[in-house]
């Protein structure tokens, strides 16, 4: 043993004192480490949404059949999407509220597209624990603020779908969308 150590020490040591065997050791393990990372990355990434799931990541909605005061429930990224045409009265009610008094301060104008204030497009996912609020269907309970009402834990949203009462921390989320014509939107 002592003999071979001596041979290593004398015969294989470089000018700078780094032994050839140590260098090979570090290089080999580093190389294997890079290889392991290269294998682990796709193993992790395969759990992300696949191409067919992402392909459904945008949804077109035709607005022509929705009358003022009406709402429809459709899906966007396999979650419910509420599309509502507000009445003049509902818009006035939403504008009357001082945003600074709200839990998640936002005005109706900030939650809608310029010049299309009557179109309120939000996710139908309560920001508390993800239940689907009531209020998009005909005759459903719209809560004491006339917007949406989550039956799970009693969160009430107003006519601009802003949180007013109950445990939810945020307003109903407004997804990214754009008008492709006067009566159609593309969500996502």
């Amino acid at each position, binding site marked *: 043993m002592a003999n071979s150590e001596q041979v290593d020490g004398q015969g294989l040591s470089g000018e700078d004192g780094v032994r050839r065997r140590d260098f090979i050791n570090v290089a080999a393990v580093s190389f294997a480490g890079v290889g392991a990372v290269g294998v682990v990355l796709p193993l992790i990434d395969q759990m992300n949404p696949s191409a067919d*799931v992402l392909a459904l990541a945008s949804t077109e909605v035709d607005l022509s059949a929705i009358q003022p005061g009406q709402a429809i429930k459709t899906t966007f990224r396999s979650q419910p999407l509420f599309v509502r045409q507000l009445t003049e009265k509902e818009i006035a009610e939403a504008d009357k509220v001082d945003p600074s008094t709200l839990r998640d301060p936002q005005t109706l104008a900030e939650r809608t597209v310029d010049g299309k204030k009557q179109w309120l497009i939000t996710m139908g996912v309560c920001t508390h624990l993800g239940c689907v609020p009531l209020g998009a269907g005909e005759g459903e309970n719209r809560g004491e603020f006339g917007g949406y009402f989550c039956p799970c834990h009693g969160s009430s949203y107003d006519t601009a779908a802003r949180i007013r009462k109950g445990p939810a921390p945020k307003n109903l989320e407004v997804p990214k969308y754009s008008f492709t014509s006067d009566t159609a939107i593309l969500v996502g």
Partner: protein
Amino acid sequence: MSFPWAEHYTPKHPLMQWVDEKLPLPRLVYNAVGAGYPVPRNLNYFWNFGVLAGLALLIQIVTGVVMAMHYGANTLVAFGTVEQTMRDVNAGWLMRYAHANGASFFFIVVYLHIFRGLYFGSYKAPREMVWLLGLVIFLLMMATAFMGYVLPWGQMSYWGAKVITGLFGAIPVVGEPIQTWLLGGFAPGNASLNRFFSLHFLLPFVIAAVVILHIWALHIPGSSNPTGVEVKGPQDTVPFHPYYTAKDGFGAGIFLILFAILLFFAPNYLGHPDNYIEANPLSTPAHIVPEWYFWPFYAILRAFTVDFFFVPAKLLGVLAMFASILLLFFLPWLDTSPVRSGSYRPTFKTFFWILVLDVLILGYCGGAPAEEPYVMISQVAAAYYFAHFLIILPMIARFEKPLPLPNSITEAVLAKYAKADGEPAAVPAE
């Protein structure tokens, strides 16, 4: 390790001698759960629950593998194949009810096993590793049970998956990408169902492997006992077989009788009717609750209703829920009292029972709707839960005056019998 007086494995049959030379597996079994493992002579029935948990795991694996033969992990057919298992597959109803109620029984015996450990100080040196591995098993069990509950793809399955993965969404910045990554989509879907099935099949075998480590770590110092006094000599122990194989066999009989009562007479008692409705992403059940064995933790999650400085209430709840379990990993170092058994710790004993009550209250609140007075009760109970481990236990360890300990297990046992006979204790000279 084993005690020096442990019985030695000496195969008599030539075939067994031949096997022992080639692969000493029978020797391993003999030394682990046979006559070769000396165990304190005074174990009470609370020491049955480790073996019962092993039995419950075995039932889950057998019924689960059978159920997987009839299940289709696809959102289009999953709900239907479970119903088909119930109605059309021979004895399929038995397998499914045994699997669903078996999970509940697994948690019942594991909770009793954990509280046994808490009362008798089984987590203390030199058995810290046994305790830590036990907690790893507990975490794996919870993950497995959660994913298993998603597989029938009923309403509770779907919304449970949504709420639980939504917990990760509460983490700032990385939360939502993590949630999407876990689900393989923006909401629970086919990708989620498939991966949950794959992992639900895998994890029980991981649990079995950690159980082996748990037993291995236990057998190094040997089992603890109700007095908490370590084994001092051969008179303190009896061989595991036949003494505790018989005692555990009796316990297993009782366990199976109770299991059969629930299984055959009230198989849906612990379930939720909503889960017999197929998953509908557009309609939420009125009252989402997890299975009963998650209720105490669910109550802690929901106890946080107001933001604290810049931390939102939802995130606080999530952190508290994870902390309530991770806290237990530090228990061996939080309780510094050198006396193990709660029987000799009067103050500890009182607070132990308050903790049991506290967890039961949390459990009740976790199953109740999120409204007053349950929210306030769970806030108080959650605060007490943390106070017990972080404040009360270290304080007791410092100020409590424990009762005198017996000199040995044998002395404690003989004193008990002497008292029963009305005679003074006969203490063997040591």
